[in-house]
C-alpha cells in the first residue's frame, strides 16, 4: 500500500501498538527549554527516575533571557530562577546545555537545525508548540506538554494516536517581494486556526521544493497556527547539503548510511490523504494580519473586514472583539495602519536569510522618526554571521536596535514588550491578545514587510522599496 511520508516515519517509530489505536512511539530527539521543563525534572526527582538517553536531549535557555547586555546576568528574579533551574537540572541529569554565555545559544528551534541535531526521518519533540519548525527537514516534529516532557525524559517514548494526513500543495512561482511567510499566512487564512486539528500537514508542490531550507522552516514553523499537530516537507539535496558537516550531523560512514536512508523519505505515488488543498504561488501577495488570530489575514492592498458583512454570529462577535482590541475601524485600508514598533526575530523569522531580506530593504534608508525598531537574531551563530556580513551596521544605521539572541518580543516574557495600545509590525507568529505585552497590538508580517513598515511608519508594501 502506498504510504505518506508521515505514515512512514510513524511506522518506523512504533514501539508498541494497543488495540484501541493508542501507540507508544520512539523519540529520537528531545529539545528542552527553561519554561516548560522545571516541573518535568521535578517529577523525575519525585519518583526517583532518571533520563533514559541524555545524549538524545539538548537544552537551551531562550524564552526568558535578556537581549541586552548579559554580562550582569538576569535582573528579573523569577526569570533568573527559571534559567538557573534549567542549568542545575541539566547538570544533575547529564544533559547538554547551551547556556546564556554560549555563542551557540539561541531560540530552541533555530539551534536544533544549526547544530545538525535536527535530522530527516526522526521524531523530534519539545515542550513548545513551534517544534513543527523542524519538519522542514522531513522529520516528524511536534510540541508536547510538560507531563509529556517528563514522559520522554524517563522513557524516550511518547504515547500518541496517529493523526490524519493533510497535504497542502503550492505550485508555481512567487511574485517579487512575496516570501514563505506570506505563503504560510495565506495557508492559515485559508484553512483557519482549527483547519489542521488532528492532522499532520505535508507541504508539497514545486514552489515548496524551490524554497531554501530556511524558508521551509518558516512555513513548517507556523503549522501550529493552522491547528495541525505537525508540518513536514520531504527532504532533498538542499537539506542534505545544509546538514553536511554540522557539529551533530552523522560523520563518515554513518553519513553515507544516513543519506541512503534519508533519500527514501518521501510520500509514495498514490498515497491517500484525508484532506488536500491546492494553492497557486502566483496568486499570493504580501500579507498582513489585522486581528488577534493568525487566520485574520489580508493582503497589503486589502482592507480590514467589516463585521456587518458576517452572517455567522460567532464569527461576527469575534471580528468585533478583534477590531475593538486592535483599535481599528471596519473597511480601513491596511496601508493606513500606523505603527509604533517593529520587531524582527523569533523562530519564524530570526534566521540569517530573514535578516538579509530585511537589511536589503533597509540599506541606506532611515526608519520613520516615531518608530522604535529592533532586531533580535535567532541565535548567537546567526548574530555572528550577520555581523560578518555587516548586516548589523545596516540595521543600526537605519535606526534599528541590534540585540542579543532569544525569543524576546515574540512572547514578551523578558523585558522586551509592547505597552498597552502600542502597535507593532512583527515577524513572529502569534498576534493573540496580549501576546507581545498587555494591550499590545500585533500585525504579523514577513521580514521585508517589517522593514518596509519601519521606513514608512505604517504598514506598507515591501515592493515599493524593491529595486
Amino acid at each position: 500500500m502506498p504510504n505518506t511520508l508521515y505514515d512512514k516515519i510513524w511506522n518506523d517509530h512504533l514501539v508498541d501498538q494497543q488495540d484501541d489505536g493508542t501507540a507508544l512511539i520512539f523519540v529520537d530527539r528531545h529539545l528542552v527549554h527553561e519554561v516548560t521543563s522545571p516541573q518535568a525534572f521535578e517529577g523525575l526527582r519525585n519518583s526517583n527516575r532518571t533520563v533514559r538517553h541524555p545524549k538524545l536531549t539538548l537544552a537551551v535557555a531562550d524564552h526568558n533571557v535578556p537581549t541586552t547586555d548579559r554580562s550582569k546576568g538576569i535582573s528579573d528574579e523569577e526569570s533568573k530562577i527559571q534559567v538557573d533551574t534549567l542549568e542545575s537540572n541539566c547538570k544533575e541529569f547529564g544533559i547538554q546545555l547551551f547556556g546564556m554565555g554560549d555563542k551557540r545559544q539561541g531560540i530552541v528551534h533555530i539551534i536544533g537545525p544549526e547544530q545538525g541535531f535536527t535530522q530527516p526521518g526522526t521524531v523530534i519533540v519539545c515542550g513548545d508548540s513551534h517544534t513543527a519548525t523542524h519538519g522542514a527537514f522531513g522529520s516528524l516534529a511536534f510540541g508536547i506538554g510538560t507531563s509529556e516532557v517528563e514522559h520522554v525524559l524517563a522513557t524516550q517514548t511518547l504515547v500518541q494516536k496517529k493523526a490524519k494526513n493533510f497535504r497542502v500543495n503550492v505550485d508555481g512561482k512567487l511574485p517579487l517581494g512575496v516570501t514563505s511567510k506570506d505563503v504560510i499566512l495565506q495557508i492559515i487564512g485559508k484553512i483557519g486556526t482549527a483547519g489542521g486539528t488532528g492532522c499532520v500537514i505535508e507541504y508539497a508542490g514545486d514552489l515548496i521544493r524551490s524554497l531554501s531550507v530556511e524558508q521551509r522552516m518558516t512555513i513548517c514553523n507556523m503549522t501550529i497556527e493552522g491547528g495541525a499537530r505537525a508540518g513536514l516537507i520531504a527532504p532533498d539535496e538542499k537539506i542534505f547539503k545544509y546538514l553536511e558537516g554540522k557539529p551533530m550531523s552523522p560523520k563518515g560512514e554513518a553519513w553515507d548510511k544516513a543519506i541512503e536512508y534519508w533519500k527514501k523519505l518521501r510520500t509514495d505515488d498514490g498515497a491517500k490523504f484525508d484532506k488536500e488543498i491546492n494553492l497557486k504561488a502566483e496568486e499570493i501577495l504580501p500579507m498582513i494580519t489585522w486581528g488577534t488570530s493568525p487566520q485574520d489575514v489580508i493582503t497589503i492592498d486589502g482592507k480590514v473586514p467589516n463585521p456587518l458583512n458576517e452572517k455567522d454570529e460567532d464569527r461576527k462577535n469575534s471580528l468585533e472583539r478583534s477590531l475593538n482590541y486592535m483599535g481599528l475601524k471596519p473597511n480601513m485600508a491596511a496601508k493606513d495602519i500606523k505603527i509604533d514598533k517593529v520587531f524582527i526575530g523569533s523562530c519564524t523569522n530570526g534566521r540569517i536569510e530573514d535578516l538579509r531580506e530585511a537589511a536589503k530593504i533597509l540599506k541606506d534608508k532611515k526608519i520613520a522618526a516615531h518608530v522604535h525598531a529592533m532586531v533580535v537574531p535567532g541565535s548567537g551563530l546567526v548574530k555572528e554571521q550577520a555581523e560578518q556580513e555587516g548586516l548589523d551596521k545596516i540595521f543600526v544605521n537605519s535606526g534599528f536596535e541590534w540585540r542579543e539572541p532569544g525569543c524576546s518580543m515574540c512572547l514578551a516574557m523578558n523585558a522586551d514588550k509592547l505597552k498597552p495600545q502600542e502597535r507593532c509590525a512583527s515577524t513572529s507568529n502569534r498576534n493573540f491578545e496580549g501576546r507581545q505585552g498587555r494591550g499590545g497590538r500585533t500585525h504579523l508580517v514577513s521580514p521585508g514587510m517589517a522593514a518596509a513598515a519601519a521606513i514608512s511608519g505604517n504598514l506598507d508594501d515591501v515592493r515599493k522599496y524593491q529595486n
Partner: protein
Amino acid sequence: MMLESIKIKMQKFNTLKSIPAYLPIVNIDTDMIIPKQFLKTIKRTGLGKNLFFEMRYDDNGNEINNFVLNKNPFNKSKILIAGKNFGCGSSREHAPWALLDFGITCVISSSFADIFYSNCFKNGILPIILDDEKIKELSEYANRKEEISIDLSEEKIVYGNSKINFEIDPFKKKCLLEGLDDIALSLKKSEKIKTFENNLKIRKSWIFND
C-alpha cells in the same frame, strides 16, 4: 495489562456536579487562559488566581465584576463551557494547571486544540466535545444557575430531566477514572523499548550520537 500496581499520580475523575460557567468566546488561546508572565514559575500549583488574568482583572489588579468567573456562583464552577477551538496556541501545560488550581476539572467545547486536549488528561481534567446545539442547551443551565452532572464511566451528562452522551477514548478514560501515572504504564513496556533501541542501533546507528 496489569494496572493494579501502577501508582496513582493524579486526582481520579469519576462524577462531577456543578453549576457550569459559560464563556461564549471562540478560539480561546492559551495566552488568554494563562498569560506568559505567570509561566516563570517552577511549580505546578498556585496558578488559579491568574486564570484568564487579562479578562479577569483591570489595570489596577481589581476584579472585573462582569467577567463570569468573578461572579457568584460561577467563581466556584467546576465545569467550564466555552466556544470552539478551546486551548489553541502554545503547548503550555500551565493552562490546564491554572484551570485545575481554580477548581475547574471539566471543560466542554465543540472542539479543542490537540496539545491542550491531551494535556488535560495528564492532569485529571476531562475535556468533553459536544456539537454546538448541545452546547447552547447546556449554556442555558449556566444562565439559570442550575447544576449539571457529569458521569465519566457512563459517558453522560445529566441535566434537568435530560441527558447527553459524549464519547471519549477508552484508554484516556481509564487513565482518568483510575488516576493512572502514564509514565509508570509506559515503563512497564521497558522490554519493548529496549528491543526497539537495539534494532535502531543496527538500522540507524547515527541516531544515538555515539
